[in-house]
């Protein structure tokens, strides 16, 4: 039923030329958006335009091209700031992706404030990128990694989280949306509870930003990271949002050009935010591409995106639940973007291969979340992950593909 927020998906799909192709002689049904999303033509055009017309290094602007590229780069920072509703552009640090953003916080804030016997809290549904950097830090400092358990729907057990917090807790790091399960975590409540102990919170928003409006001030989080390529932007670019005071107090991470104010062999003075954390020539084109996709998403409206995907997810959940021998993994009451499942008698990789031959692109495996798979006692799942350009027909094609899987395996 069309509503005020409904999307004209047929028209929007025309913005994504890659979707209009056949694979193995079948129309491409792209349902691997949690791995990476496709790029609208405006993003590809922005990259092309930059390299055709404006390419120059930034922040060294004695000539016209450098002025233009600097202006475009910093304009993109402003777009990200408004997109996340950050207080100012000094809080927006460009990094390679969510992974690098988390590592940056672990290696600066973490190394400064975490000591022997201190504790860092993560959840049992984290992507490896929000586990390993903290393990490395804990190993270095003799600190302890504490894990919030999840229930069989794939939701964090909030009362257990409350019990984990104590006077040794130095940081909480949780995903906003789980990449393997689709669970939307109650991050606002997590932040509020952690702040009760004066503990800062990092939110991994890699799987949230493509699906919903994110407001870092409303969440009241201290750090928020996301990756450009998962939100229809280029690969190799991402964002770390950090509360200004925290970023000010953190030591720099990588040293090099652009992050300094003055250098002598005796002493180096570091640059102001956000440049303190942007050593070396950044991915200028990537940042400009990210700016282009934010303009694009602003036009569509993230609320409309969320509403459309909610309908898709409900439709897909019902459709998959009606298939005998199929079990959905991740049935949280609040979910976004992900339909992860196992089929009795069929390994996820075999399902993935057969679906591919039907034109349906999904991911099979542990989704870089092995502890999640261990929790459910499985080696992996087949995962269909959604974007706003997906349609009910895409879900129908997935269901038909699953029937083909069952036919091949006679289950």
């Amino acid at each position, binding site marked *: 039923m069309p509503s005020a927020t409904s999307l004209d998906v047929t028209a929007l799909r025309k913005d994504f030329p890659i979707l209009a192709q056949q694979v193995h002689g079948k129309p491409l049904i792209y349902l691997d958006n949690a791995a990476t999303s496709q790029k609208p033509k405006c993003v590809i055009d922005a990259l092309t335009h930059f390299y055709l017309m404006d390419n120059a290094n930034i922040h060294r602007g004695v000539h016209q091209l450098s002025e233009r590229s600097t202006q475009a780069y910093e304009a993109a920072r402003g777009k990200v700031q408004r997109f996340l509703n950050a207080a100012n552009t000094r809080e927006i640090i460009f990094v390679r992706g969510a992974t690098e953003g988390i590592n940056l916080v672990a290696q600066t804030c973490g190394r400064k404030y975490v000591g022997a016997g201190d504790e860092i809290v993560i959840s049992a549904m984290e992507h490896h990128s929000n586990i390993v950097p903290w393990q490395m830090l804990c190993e270095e400092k003799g600190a302890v990694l504490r894990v919030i358990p999840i229930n069989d729907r794939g939701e964090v057990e909030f009362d257990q989280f409350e019990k984990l917090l104590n006077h040794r807790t130095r940081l909480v790091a949780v995903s906003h949306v789980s990449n393997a399960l689709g669970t939307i975590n109650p991050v606002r409540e997590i932040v509020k509870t952690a702040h009760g102990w004066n503990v800062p919170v990092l939110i991994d928003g890699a799987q949230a930003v493509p699906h919903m409006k994110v407001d870092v001030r409303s969440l009241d989080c201290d750090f928020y990271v996301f990756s450009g390529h998962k939100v229809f932007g280029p690969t190799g670019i991402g964002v770390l949002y950090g509360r200004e005071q925290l970023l000010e107090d953190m030591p720099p991470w990588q040293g090099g050009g652009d992050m300094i104010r003055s250098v002598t062999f005796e002493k180096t003075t570091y640059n102001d935010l956000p440049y303190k954390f942007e050593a070396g020539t950044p991915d200028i084109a990537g940042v400009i591409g990210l700016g282009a996709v934010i303009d694009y998403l602003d036009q569509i409206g993230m609320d409309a995106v969320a509403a459309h995907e909610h309908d898709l997810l409900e439709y897909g959940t019902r459709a998959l639940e009606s298939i005998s021998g199929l079990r959905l993994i991740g049935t949280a009451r609040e979910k976004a973007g992900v339909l992860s499942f196992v089929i009795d*008698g*069929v*390994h*996820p*990789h*075999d399902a993935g*291969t*057969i679906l591919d*031959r039907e034109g349906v692109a999904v991911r*099979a*495996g*542990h989704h870089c979340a*092995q502890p999640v*798979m261990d929790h459910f006692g499985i*080696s*992996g799942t087949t995962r269909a992950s959604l974007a706003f350009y997906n349609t009910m027909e895409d879900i129908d094609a997935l269901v038909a593909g699953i029937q*083909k899987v069952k036919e*091949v*395996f*006679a289950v």
Partner: protein
Amino acid sequence: MINDLYQETILDHNKRPRNFQLLEDANRKAEGYNPLCGDRCKVFLKEHDGVIDKLTFQGAGCAISTASASLMTEVLKGKTVGEAETLLAKFHDLLTTDQPLPKDLGKLVVFSGVREFPARVKCATLAWHTLRAALRGAGEVVSTE
């Protein structure tokens, strides 16, 4: 064609893997792991005077890796270590080259469809790499990566 990959024999060995058990009197064993998909495979063998007397496996994996391990245990039983190494090389060629199908592969020819699915070659070779590690006495877990 998907049916070239999932041939009847493969589906049968996936559903009812042969020699799928621990071998109590094994004198060689190894564990294989494919970190990309999480598949694991343990190979146990009893070797005497350079001959593979008994060969079994355990583990969890996709149809291709399970059937490959199962057929491997059937095909190599009673073979010499040298013959096993030769067959491993031929099996690898079967999966990865465009050359005409190697001869003397027997039942293993059902895996010829895998060459059209490059992403699945490692599934088919996991058990074989593990076997080689067992024969060569490498004690640690072997990885496909």
